[in-house]
Structures are given as C-alpha cells and as structure tokens.
C-alpha cells in the first residue's frame, strides 16, 4: 500500500510540467547517441578552426601596430582587399612581414598566428630569423612523424629518427611542418587548416542553396497538390537526371574566372531534389493534421500555415538529407580538386591528395592527413545525419529500445 503515496506526486508533477517539445525531445534523443554527439563536437571544432584559420596558421600578423596605427593584415586570408594597401603598394612589404615590420618601423609590434606557415606558398630562407625554410621535393617530412619516432626511440631504444631524419637534421633545425610539406614546399598543416574553410564553406553554402530551393519547391508541391504538384514533381525528376559533376566541368570551361563559388552554386542547384521530395512528403502528411485545419479555420494565410505551422514540424526529417548533403558536397569538392578542376587559388584537401598522387611512395603524408580529414569530416556529417534521423523518428526510436 505504500506505493500509492509515492506514485501520486509523480503523476501530478508530470501533469504540471509542460510536456517536452518536439525539438527538445529530439535533442534529448540525439544526446544519447554518443557517436553522433562526438561527431557534432568534431564538426563544431572543425568549424571553429576553419573560421579562425588565419590565427592558427599564416604569415601575416593578426594585429600589428605599425607607424602608430593598428592593422589586421591577416584579414587578407579572408579577402585580399582587407589587407591594408600600406603593406602592399605603399611600403612594399612584398608579403614578408617579420623583417619589414622591424626595418621600416622599429617601434612596431605584432601578434602572430600560432604557426608561421603559409597555405599558399613555401617558407623562404631568412624570412624570420631562426625559422628554417621549407624544403622542396620529397624532403618535407612531417614534424609529427619526427616526434613520434623520437618518442618511439626513447621508449624502445631504436634509432628510427636517425634513419628517417638523419640527412635532414644535418642541414640544421627541422622545419616546423607539422603534417609535412608538399613537393613545392608548401606546409600541409597550413593548407589543411585553410582547406577546412573551403570544405566547410562548400558544405554549408551549397546545402544552404539546396535547402532553400528544395524546401520551397517541396513545400509548394506538397501543400498545394494538384497540377502544381505534378509540375514540380516533374521538375524534380528532370533535375535529378542532371549529373552535377558534368555540369560543373562544363561551367568551369565557360566562366572567365571560375572560383569555389561557382562550384558551390552548381552543387546547390543540382542537389536539392532529395530535400524537395522529403519536404513534399512531410507536407502531404502534415497538411491533413487537425492543427492545420484549425489554423485554416482561424483564417491564417497560406504562407503562414506553410512556413510557421507545417514547416516547423516537418523540418527535423528534412535536416537529415541536408546533413548527408553537406558530406557529399565536401566529397564532390575534394573530388574536383583531386581531378585538378578545383579553385586553383584556394587551398583544399582534395588538392593535397592530388599532389600526393604522383609521389605516393615517397610522400605518404600528402595522402594520409588530408585523407583522414576528409574521411572524418564526411563520417561526422553522416553520423550527425544518422543521429538526427533516429532522434526525430519515433518509429526508429521504438525499434531501438
């Protein structure tokens, strides 16, 4: 009989607190999936490092006080014109800050990025006292590998450092190329950090475009039905038949100065069909719901019903193809760069892979590090997508329990 008094307050408590909303329930479910959560953390970490890439690796100071003024030359990595012209055409720094700052204004000071390496060019001799130049050819072995071998040697008494790095160490201190350097002497770590920007940008922008088109089209088709549905569904089918890669290759041949933005637009305008179909399905289902009828009865406008009432409830399953889409957009960009069709002025993981292809036997680091980056990023997005799918689909949740 003792159970009654215990149960009683529990029931009332449940009645008093408002039931969990769809989103908070989804988040609660999502949190339970450790892998998905780790993936989300990975993606966020990647996003942050992409955003602050110039602060992690670069050769331009983040902040400098020069001739009495504050400047932010590292902004040039986001947009060339954000670097003050005083360093370019006026005082002729020629892209070499450390010595020019000292020479032209001994009073100046600067805050430097964590790693003094450029994603676009190799480090030359005497750029910064004490920092050795990047070697070209197959000599730019990863610093990380050096540390690893050193640790191994001290643990097991082997002599791998001498074997692998002996010749390089004779030439003086080892250049600080964490992940090695390409055969042109460009630091792989710097390229990967800045390349993360490219990957993130491609993923988000192209899927943003795709989502905008896909949701609008799908919503219109599902909500209005009838001939609009028939027409839009045919359009979706037609677009599905267009191979994005071929379209991109054709576009690159036409455009005077093709850039990553063109690629993103093409991926966006060809990759929305899955989203549109899903949205259409959700809308077909949800427009039958009582709350929609209620909203209609209250005199809400079509747009209001579609986007405030239905879309909110349809959005969760739609996020799933978007997450997968980001992963595939990153893959497409890498593939294009790998084939040599990427934006040549932008560092990218695929481009590193491409450079590693010719010398795979000697320069394994050109394959390993960007390969891992692509693998983990794509995997993370897929895990997030999967987590979302499971978290928002009550049927799968039940099946899982």
């Amino acid at each position: 009989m003792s159970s009654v008094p215990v149960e009683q307050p529990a029931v009332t408590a449940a009645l008093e607190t408002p039931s969990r909303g769809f989103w908070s329930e989804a988040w609660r479910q999502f949190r339970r999936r450790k892998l998905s959560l780790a993936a989300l953390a990975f993606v966020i970490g990647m996003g942050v490092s992409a955003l602050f890439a110039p602060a992690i690796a670069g050769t331009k100071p983040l902040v400098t006080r020069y001739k009495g003024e504050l400047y932010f030359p590292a902004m040039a990595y986001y947009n060339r014109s954000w670097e003050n012209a005083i360093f370019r055409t006026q005082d002729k720094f020629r892209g070499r800050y450390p010595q020019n700052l000292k020479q032209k204004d001994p009073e100046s000071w600067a805050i430097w990025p964590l790693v003094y390496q450029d994603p676009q060019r190799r480090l030359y001799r005497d750029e910064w006292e004490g920092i050795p130049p990047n070697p070209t050819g197959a000599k730019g072995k990863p610093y990380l590998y050096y540390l690893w071998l050193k640790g191994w040697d001290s643990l097991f008494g082997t002599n791998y450092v001498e074997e692998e790095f002996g010749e390089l160490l004779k030439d003086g201190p080892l250049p600080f190329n964490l992940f090695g350097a390409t055969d042109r002497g460009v630091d792989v770590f710097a390229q990967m950090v800045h390349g993360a920007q490219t990957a993130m940008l491609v993923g988000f922008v192209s899927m943003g475009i795709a989502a905008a088109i896909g949701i609008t089209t799908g919503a219109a088709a599902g909500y209005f039905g009838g001939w609009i549905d028939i027409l839009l569904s045919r359009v979706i089918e037609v677009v599905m038949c267009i191979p994005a890669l071929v379209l991109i290759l054709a576009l690159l041949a036409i455009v005077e100065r093709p850039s990553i933005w063109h690629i993103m637009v093409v991926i966006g305008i060809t990759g929305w069909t899955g989203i549109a179909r899903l949205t259409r399905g959700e809308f077909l289902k949800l427009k039958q719901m009582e709350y929609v009828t209620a909203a209609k009865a209250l005199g809400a406008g079509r747009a209001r019903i579609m986007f405030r009432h239905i879309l909110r409830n349809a959005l969760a399953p739609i996020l799933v193809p978007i997450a997968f889409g980001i992963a595939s957009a990153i893959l497409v960009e890498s593939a294009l760069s790998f084939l040599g069709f990427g934006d040549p002025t932008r560092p990218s993981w695929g481009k590193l892979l491409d450079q590693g292809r010719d010398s795979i036997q000697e320069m394994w680091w050109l394959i390993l590090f960007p390969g891992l980056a692509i693998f983990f990023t794509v995997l993370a997005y897929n895990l997030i997508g999967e987590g979302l799918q499971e978290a928002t689909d009550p049927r799968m949740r039940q099946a899982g329990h």
Partner: protein
Amino acid sequence: MSSPRWLILLLWTATLPCFALAGCGGSSSSKPGPATAENGKAGDGGSSQGSGEASSDEPTVLLEPYDPPTLDELNAKVEWEDRPVLDAMEMLREKQAGEQPLVSVEEALKLRNTSHENNAKILSALGRLPESDDQVDLDATIVRHLSGDLKSTNPIMTSAAVESDYHGVTGISLLSFDWNMQAFGAAEVIESWQTSKDRMYDKVVLRKDLTWSDGKPLTAHDVVFSFQTIMNPKVPVPAVRSGTDELRWVEAYDDYTLVFFHKEALAVNSWNILFPIIPKHIYENSVAEDPTMQNSEYHVKFEEQPVVSGPYRVVSRRRGQEVVVERRDEWSTFNGQEVRRKPHFKRIRFLVIEDPNTSLLALKKGDIHETLITADQWTQQTNDDDFYARNTKATGLEWTEFHICWNTKSPFFSDKNVRWAMGYAFDHDEMLEKIFYGLYEPAVGVFHPDAWMAPKTPPKPLKQDLDKAEELLDKAGWEDSDGDGTRDKEINGELVPFEFSIIYAQGSTNAEKVCNLLRENLDQIGIICNPRPLEWTVLQEMTQNHKFHAVMGGWGTGTDPYTLENIFKTGAERNYGEYSNKKVDELFAQGMKEFDQEKRADIYRQIFMQLYEDQAYTWLFHRSSFYGFNKSLRGYVFSPRGPYSYSPGFESIWMVKP
C-alpha cells in the same frame, strides 16, 4: 633502320604526363613545316578535321594537274648542286672515334646518376657503338615502351608522336638529320640527292636494292603514288598532308629517279620531300574502293599485317597492348650480298603502357628495357637499389623551351615594359632550383644556346628583381592610384585593376607550379594573377582565338628555324599572343630566301634578339629528357630531340651478349 623521320617539330607542350612521355605528343609529321606540328592530342588538330570534312562532303582539289618537263629539258634548264648523302652510323662512329670514354663500362654501370659529371660518364661509356658485331647480341629482343597505342600502322595515317617510334623502324626516309639537326640524304635509301641552285627542284635517285616486306622492289613509282594518295582529298590524312602540300608535283622519270617540284624558291623546300612511303602495288586499286584506307576488309588485313619498307616488319599486333616487329633479312642482304648493316635487334616489342608510374615499375621489374621518365621520377623514384638493380638512367638536353606567352593585344601586356616587368618579377632561381631541382637550363629566347642559329653570345638569363619590375610597371602607368593594394591604370576612362588569368593545360604539374610561383611573385608587387587550368581542347580554342591574357606553354625545336615563322610572324597561325613586329616579319621573309647557311643563321639570330628585346614571351627553361635504360643496353646518344628522334637514333642502340 634509316632515320626517325617522324619528327615532331614544334610542340605546343602540355607536359601532361602522357604527352610528356610521348615526347610531348604532337602530331608527328614527316616535315618540319610549320603547320605540321599540332598540339598535344594528336590527330584532333586542325589538319585532321579539315581533311576529314573535305573527304566526306565535296572533295576539293588539292593537287592541280601538272605537265612536268622531261628530264632532259629539266637538266638543260637547271643547274644542279650536289647535296650530302651520308651514313649516320658511320658519322656517329667517326665522332666517337675522337672521344675517349671517361670511365670503363663496368664503372659506368656501377655509377649513380646524381650529377652532371656522372651523367657525362655514363653516356660516354654506355653510349658507344659496338667495336664489332661480336659484342652485339644480334638475336636479342628489346622491349620498348609506347605511351599510347598506335592509331594506325599505315604511315600516312600517322598522327601521334607515339607512332613515330614504330614508323621509325618499319619505314624509310629519304632525308635524315643528325644530332646537330643538320640535314643530309640517307645513304641506306638513296644514291644521290641534288638540289637546283634556285631551290625549285630536288632530284633524288633511289637505291636499287630496296624491297617491300612482301618481296616486291621499292621504286620511284611508290613515292609518286604515296604523294598522290596523300594529296587525294578523299583520303582522310590526319597530319602528313601539311608540308607535302607545299610540293607542286613529284615525277618519277624512271624506276629510281625522282624529281620534286616546288612552288616557290625557298631555302627550306627540301624538307617537304619527306613524306611517308606506301606500297603502290597494295593500295593502287583499293584506295578508290575505300578512301579511308581503314575500313574495307582488304585494308583491315593490311592494317594488321602492313607491307613495309623499313628494316623491321610487323609479326603481331594486339590493339592497346603491344606491337611486335621482327628484323627483315632482305633489308640487309640483297641477291645474296650484304648491302646494309644488320639492325642490332632481332625483334622489337613495343609495349603499350599509358601511365608513367606503371611504366617505371615495369622498367624496374625488367618488363621493358627503356622508358621516358618524368623529372619527379628522376629525382625521387629512381635513386634506390631497386631501380639500379636492373637499370641505369641518363639525361640529355633538349631544345624544347617553355615560356609564358603574353597576349600583346591585351590591355595589360601591350606595353613592352610590362612584359619586361613580368620577366623581372618572376623568381627564375626558385623555379630552376626548387621546382625543377636544377635539372633544367634557363631559357632566354626561342633557340637553345647550343643551336647553330642561336646568337653566339646570348643574353644572360633573367634574375628576379622586384625593384626593377616595379619601376617598369610605374613607367608603364600601372600604379596603385586608388590605394586598394592593387595596381591599376586608367584605360578609356575606366580604372582597370591589374588582375588577369594565366591559363595552362589541365593536369600539367610543371605548368601549375610555375603559374603558382608567378602568382605568388606578382602578388608581392600588387598584381593579381589567377592561374587557371583548362581542359586541352578549351585551351587550344582560347589560344587560337587569342582569348587570353597569358598562357604557359612550350615549343619543341624544329629542325630548321623557319618553323618559327608560324609562331611569331604577324597574323601567323600559331601566333597566339598576336605578336607583331615589322622587322621580324621582314627577317622571316629574308630567311626563307637566303640559301647561305651562315647568312641565314645571322638572320635568325637577329630575330632571336628582336624577340628578346620585345619580350614577346617570358622564356623560362629548356626541358631535358630523362630516360631509364636497362643495363644490357648500350649505344644511346642524346640529341636535342631526345635519344630517338634523329639519325641514327634508335639504330645505334644495341644489347650486349649475355
């Protein structure tokens, strides 16, 4: 074995790995005529399309009928000059007799080719001809590497550089040129060669001991028939028609005496008589039935088992995989007498491997005996015991130059000062030392400094000098007037920022590296340069229509400098940068009319200097050729066009007795 007549003269080089392998894939053609060399993707070039279309619709008349004078009339009218008829192998033997090997063969085989000295040692010891045939393994089979399949075994259908190696051993050529690119009549094929004083006629007498591989004698009528077939508008000849079409007529006065009639009196007419020869008795009637020479059952049969005139004949062919040719005994013995040297190999197997990494692996495994290797492979993948276990490697200078071509009609580069500024802005040392590891020589102009037509004291190679570059840009009016960090200039009332694209062939790693270095250097002086890789056909179209600001490319050497006319004369076909200078135009015209070699050289030297003055291009480097050879091979000698594309070329290579 005569000489490799399938010359790639000028090549607009893509350095795409496969092209690089093919010696830069140009359509190879028999003549050094300017129009002969097409670009990279052989056969897709203008001439093939043009002729192909012509054959399908209304065939235009390519050859007007001509009533040649009789030989007596001609002899009465014309003053003949004897031209040299030489044996290339004897010439090489004489040359080598005066040279002592720097090291013994054993030492050379142990050497690692890590320096210029070692390269010279290896070539001096292993590049020698055999002292006698006793040293040579005459029963040997050599496996050669082909970087792509033959499109056709019919020599007049040749269109790609890869076919030149095959045609070089199965065909004959009336003329050859040696390692200094000097021309002479091929003694194995002709008895005499005379040219009229006014250069309007060439008279060639064939040797009487030439036979086809089916036993029929090869006569002057075969040559005439070949000429007429090439000029037959119904036959879709891809490449060899250009140059040949400069001939007015070819007449056989008896079975062995040929006279070639030229259209104009030009110094370089003789090159046009170099077209491939096909057997008249095989094709005489069949060409009319099947002008494609490829489709009918009869032609397919001869495509697989061609009747050839050279030292080797085809024994088997598997498309896409290999072609095996075997020595013809009739080549060296005629009526029981030895009339020519026996070729050094019993069999040659041409193995088709398209990917350079695979071909290097095949060489290491011993599956092939020789292959072209890339600069990266040379520096990085051919230094270990694994490579030297079976092979050695050697390099030779080529006269191929690489450059950046500026569009002189572009608002950016119309001013000579700007073009000079580009030359000074570019970090030549970084390119030579770091991109090419010191393997290539700097280029200053259109000719290699060793060439006979190059200035005796050529200008010094440019060095990077950013101050000078900026000074020149300021002088040309390109200053940062709006203070945005990029140079600009007011053109037609509009402020134009100095931002341009440099285009290059997709997949060419060398070009990509060079263009990115240029981008980096120009960024330092406030100019935005966007490297832009383009798919080959798009690149060709853009360059031919002058729709570019800058393009990176390369030209291989012609056997004669007149081939440059096609590149630098005002309005010329391949004057992509629309360079125009009256003085140069006049000098080209003079060069064609001047018959004296030294005076001609002088004219071309002036052209060289004028082009340099005007910086029509920014010349970058001369590419070397790199080859891996099996240790059993000897006798390889490098010419300005690599170890094969000259005379004796492949003929001098031999295998030691095991």
